[in-house]
């Protein structure tokens, strides 16, 4: 803990620190030899390794950022846009906690580079409902006790949205298959199934 405090000055959050270092890398990146080498490649556009302009369409808004090509969509959301609803758990495209919609399809935000998400319509958990008026899926999750620690929940809700958009009248078996890209270590699967069956039946919960 003492080390952490030393790493960032008081009042600077971890995300502020990331943002600061990205800007710092800008000047060094532009001078690196790989860029000069890359520029010789006939035809193909070559960008980076330093920060480059990246424009992302997120929840209906356009955001202009300066990001290194290596920054994933998940890190761009969490560290550069303060959209921390998408969770970073495995960071290896396996657990589903970072699921967002890209042009309406579910993707692992940790397995997509931010630079590759340009021109796509990104929807995150922040676009679904508000604390006062939950999205029917969120309300059903509450109603059916579909979370325990809650870390996988945003990913499950977004994956559920993608699934129900495509399968509005799913069977229990289809729900199990359709959410095969998300893991819950607390084992709340029974609650999640019940929540989705309730949404299917038009019973999304209190605020639906």
């Amino acid at each position, binding site marked *: 803990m003492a080390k952490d405090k030393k790493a960032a000055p008081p009042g600077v959050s971890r995300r502020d620190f990331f943002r600061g270092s990205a800007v710092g*890398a800008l000047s060094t*990146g532009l001078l690196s030899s*790989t*860029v000069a*080498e*890359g520029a*010789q*490649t*006939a*035809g*193909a*556009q*070559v*960008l*980076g*390794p*330093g920060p*480059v302009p990246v424009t992302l369409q997120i929840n209906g808004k356009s955001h202009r950022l300066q990001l*290194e*090509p*290596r920054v*994933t969509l998940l890190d761009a959301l969490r560290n550069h846009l303060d959209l921390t609803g998408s969770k970073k758990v495995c*960071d*290896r*495209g*396996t657990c*589903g906690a970072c*699921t967002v919609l*890209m042009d309406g*399809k*579910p*993707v*692992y935000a*940790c*397995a*997509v*580079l931010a*630079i*590759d998400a340009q021109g796509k319509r990104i929807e995150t958990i922040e676009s679904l409902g508000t604390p006062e008026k939950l999205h029917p899926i969120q309300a059903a999750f509450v109603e059916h006790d579909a979370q325990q620690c809650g870390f996988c929940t945003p990913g499950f809700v977004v*994956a559920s949205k*993608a*699934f129900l958009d495509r399968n509005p009248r799913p069977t229990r078996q289809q729900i*199990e*298959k*359709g*959410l*095969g*890209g*998300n*893991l819950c270590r607390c084992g709340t699967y029974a609650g999640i199934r019940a929540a989705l069956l309730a949404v299917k039946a038009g019973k999304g919960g209190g605020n639906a």
Partner: protein
Amino acid sequence: MQAFEYANPTTVSEAVKALAVTGGSAAVLAGGTDLLSLMKDGVETPKRVVNLKSIKELQGISYTAGKGLRLGALATLDELMQNAKVKQEYLSLVQAAEGVRSPQIHSVGTVGGDLCQRPRCWYYRGGRGLLAMKDGKSMVMEGDNRYHAIFRSSNGPAFFVNPSSFAPALIALGAKVKVTGAKGSREIPVAEFFRIPATEGERENVLAHDEIVTEILVPPAAQVRNATYEVRQKEALDWPLAAAAVALQMDGKNVKSARIVLGHVAPVPWPVPDAEKLLPGKAVTASLAEQVGEAAVKGAMPLSRNSYKIRLARVAVKRAILRAAGMEV
């Protein structure tokens, strides 16, 4: 993840050039579901990443009567699963794609990426190389090999298993993969695309550093009963423990010829010609499928902890045959 420069070619020739100038220090990016993980783990540390997704000619799925199916390397698993022609004639491919289980992977994962994904071997993923040798000995032989190969080749000390979902079915269907590099294009039977590395540093496929997979060509299969069957530890996202793909040419009720290829049991997709020979001239029955399964695993040489996979492979073959014949068990 180490910083890299990002090349964004819009044609195959631009992509090949962008790869060629790097002398092998570049990585090819399609869906990204495998490459980004490898880069985060430091297993791959490319100086340049060449994104293929802006290349239109690599996209799409089309069918030409008499010629068959063309899968652009960038065709996603989702596109493949939704394609009417694929669903009608190439069930083994649909079943293999479904086996991936994750809608998130279906959305962005590509057919070309499925063939080029790197093995899941935990020694390799832990940075120990494909052969995982230490002091002249295989760490796989000595260590935890429960998910490793049960078939070996005299060609080298590789024990990882080929991770591709589509390769067994593509080989059973007689598909070819088209690759393009600085020296031009070539078509390779999918069976010859993969190889068993003999020394560390050798790739598990025949691609040169400036070559990319551009398309996969699958012969017409309207008259070919084909199926994939995977044996899995869990129903959610994971690679199977053993899989089999079967393609049966029929002559009335009897099998005329058969191709059977196993997946996830050897460093390359594993054809079983001796087992195939039991089928021609006979009608498919449960007991015949059982016999073929037994024949398919005859040459198995399990490691210290994976003899259980022999039984799984045997069952995968049996069930793939029955599924192809429309006798689902």
